[in-house]
């Protein structure tokens, strides 16, 4: 492993979820930043000096659907790893996680999230 810490951007509209995820990922030794929705996430990446290695994004969010965010990031930044997380879509029959994988997520994880599994996934993707 290089000396450079792994940079992770977490995107979730639920504040309490966002906070607990960030804190856990920090405990794991990652360098963590947060965004409350897809638009903010895209803006942050565009403006940042250094891009995150991994973006973890929730799929249901106001303003910019997680799926759109994934599609957009995949197109603009093919080198960023994308993890989609979801607590189950509110729309019937559509399985959002499957959709997320189809539009380019490198990994998908259902909520409630297993923190250890999330950490493992992040490490596996960047290694």
């Amino acid at each position: 492993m290089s000396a450079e810490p792994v940079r992770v951007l977490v995107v979730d509209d639920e504040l309490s979820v966002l906070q607990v995820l960030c804190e856990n990922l920090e405990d794991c030794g990652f360098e963590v930043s947060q965004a409350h929705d897809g638009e903010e996430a895209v803006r942050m990446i565009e403006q940042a000096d250094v891009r995150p290695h991994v973006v973890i994004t929730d799929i249901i969010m106001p303003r910019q659907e997680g799926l759109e965010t994934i599609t957009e990031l995949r197109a603009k930044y093919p080198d960023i790893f994308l993890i989609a997380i979801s607590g189950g879509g509110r729309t019937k029959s559509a399985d959002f996680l499957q959709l997320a994988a189809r539009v380019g997520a490198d990994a998908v994880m259902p909520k409630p999230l297993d923190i250890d599994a999330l950490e493992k996934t992040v490490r596996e993707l960047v290694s």
Partner: protein
Amino acid sequence: MPTRLLVIDDDETDRMAIRRYLTRPDLDYEIEEAAMGGEALEILSRENFACVFVDYRLPDMDGIALLRELYDVDTDSMPCPFVMLTGQGSEGVMSDALRWGASDYIIKDNISADTLRIALAKAREVFDLKRTRLQMEEKLRHAQKMDAVGQLTSGIAHDFNNLLTVILGNTRLLERRLAPEKEDIDREDLARKVKAIDSAARRGAELVRHLMVFTRQRELIQNVTDLNAAIEETSKLLKRTLGEMVDVRFTGARGLWPVFVDTSQFDNAVINIAVNARDAMPKGGKFVIETSNIAVDGEYASSHGEIAPGDYVLVSLSDSGTGMPEGVRQRIFEPFYTTKAAGEGTGLGLSMVYGFIQQSGGYVHVQSEEGHGTTFRIFLPRYIAEVQEAAPSLKAKEVAGGTETILVVENDRHDRAAAREILQGMGYRTLEAASGDAALKALSEEKGAIDLVFTDIVMPGKVNGIDLAKAVYNDYPGVKVLFASGYARDAMPENRRVDDRVLIGKPYNKDTLAAKVRQILDERERYHVG
């Protein structure tokens, strides 16, 4: 199997003609006939037909009236296909016939084998098509309902999974920070994590409660509630949850009347309305809650829709948001009605608010102006302490009995026995009479022994309670009278009204009867009756 037809016509020649036209060796029709509408309805209540031909002119009712008897407005359907037979030039009848469920019509002058057979085929086809359409619609409605249920469950699942993520994420943090090798333990940090777990779990419980309220599996827990106190509490929470962009204000009227509601459901209602307000103010704004007492009179009532006159506590909740068009305003209380994107609204918020208000005997009125904002006015009936609360104080005094003699006059055997039991239990001596006449007889026989006549007002026979009292007042100075009545005072005819002080309403209980008896025996004067 033959195809069964019914012909309703009072003219026998016409019936015969139809029968003749429809009879052909290659067609297997079984034709039943009726001359009157009533007779036809009777037959139709028992049997079904492939088609019914009905003449517009019938002796006992016209053909339209007959159709209307059978037409089901809710499903827009008839039990079987109908063809109306009308005279030339009666367009009104034809369109009415179709309006009330007939599938086709024939002008009587044009009746022939061909027109009958064509009408028969057409009517059956139209009828079948319509029935298929109704079935499809029913299926669609069912599917929509299932869809709605699906959306509800997946919405709840989504919220729950988020809460569980918070809980599990925090327990993981605690675990790491409490690990044995950790040296410096930041107690404040730990306390924050515990708090986060606690509030996530509570929100989960709240969510379940919402769901239960919605599916009506949980009864209302109604309490006498001070809405000002309830809103005060909730508005603190709102200030936190609505974010800094929304200015939350609350002004409670002084001396606000109490109401009788399920307080936690009231809180939910306020929160639901507040969350909608926030959604309607994406750039922020004001959310103002006010309470006041309001006596709704007839005039106010008629200008505010269906609200019944009476005392109410009014809670008004206003936002300075986008407002909504009239078409939306009319539908907001429908379950699952939402204008929000899939995943953002279940459309259940206001339907729960509405359910709560209805169950509390209240009303809600919504005013909205596009571009300016929305005001919800909730009227909840004022709570007035029941009379029962006075009863314990009466009881506390321990009602005194006595040893006087009371004549119980009552035609109902059970009521009489009940009164006797109570009075004897209090120490009184009792005599009984089943009618006014019998009472008068007892009075004259027991000269001087009777202290009080306890009589029903309404009794069969020549002498009712009032007559009896008048006789007592005339002939037996010293003897008191107490009336019992099962009727409301105002329901009694003018000349049978008696003073409230000597009247006890049925059914009465032991304490009220005992108190009344003692009071009357102890009073000097007697009261005028009739």
